């Protein structure tokens, strides 16, 4: 009689343990499903953050930036950099563009500059890319009445990153 009762207790305990293990396995699977569903979005977000950091760094770099000014890009320097193959993999982004905020967006060449709005600095021809825009002041040297001065217009620095 006592042995039967103990067997029943052991059975009860084993069922309880099985239920507990099942519960934790299910809860774990639920948690993993939630975590991994956002993995792709997180990777894209990280790329976006990286592109924004690069945009901020570019605006202050000697290749792009004006002297002693934040959020300022010297377009005379940028047009000289356009299409240089040495810079294609230098910044590890899909593309870099500088655009004036105007109604038109004519692409700049050395011949058409500064009567144009868009400078495509580098382009790695990635198909699935997204831009991170940063407002910048686009400055260049201009000549008027025989005097040279800095002419600045509002524009955007667009750093493209790859969508995953």
């Amino acid at each position, binding site marked *: 009689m006592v042995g039967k009762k103990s067997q029943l207790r052991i059975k009860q305990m084993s069922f309880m343990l099985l239920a507990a293990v099942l519960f934790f396995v299910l809860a774990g699977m639920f948690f993993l499903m939630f975590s991994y569903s956002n993995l792709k979005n997180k990777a894209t977000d990280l790329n976006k953050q990286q592109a924004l950091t690069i945009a901020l760094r570019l605006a202050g770099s000697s290749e792009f930036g004006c002297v002693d*000014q934040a*959020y300022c890009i010297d377009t005379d320097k940028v047009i000289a950099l356009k299409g240089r193959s040495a810079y294609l993999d230098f910044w590890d982004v899909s593309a870099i563009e500088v655009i004036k*905020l105007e109604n038109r967006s004519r692409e700049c060449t050395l011949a058409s500059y500064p009567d144009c709005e868009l400078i495509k600095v580098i382009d790695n021809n990635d198909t699935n890319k997204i831009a991170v825009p940063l407002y*910048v002041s686009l400055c260049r040297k*201009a000549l008027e*009445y025989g*005097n040279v001065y*800095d*002419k600045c217009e509002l524009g955007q620095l667009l750093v493209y990153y790859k969508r995953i």
Partner: protein
Amino acid sequence: MIRKNLTKSKPGQEEIVGFVLIIVLVFVVGVIFLGIMLRKPVPSSNSPEIENFLEASMLTTTDCAINYAPAYDNLGDLIKSCYEDKVCASTNESSCSVLNKSFSSVLNKAFSGERYSGYNLEIAYVNNETETVKEILNISRQGNCSGVGAMKFINAYGGDLQVRLEVCYSES
């Protein structure tokens, strides 16, 4: 007989209470977990995008040269010229009128797309010590809006020139 049944049912009752407690505990933990997972980030009223716009736009060259062309003021300098009620030698207009035109043009270029529904720009001189407030410029499109915004402070004349911009985004 009844007494014997009562003593037998006590362990059963205890097990039921324990089971209910476990269910409640699991439910509470689940609700907290779901609450954390589904919580949406609260949008900040101080926008880095607008702050970035204000910083960059201050360098924009205007048509106003106070002394001689081509020593044109940028927007930041023109705010100071407007506070001092100066006249532009290049256009024979008041600096405040040119400031209004130039800032309106810059704002329209930046915030005229479908993404935006309006903006509100206020520039004022504030001196907390003398409790002086002087409004310099107010540009508004499509009335007041309570979207995201940013402020820029320019130290001048013993106080601050405060540039405050609010931008409203379209709902869709």
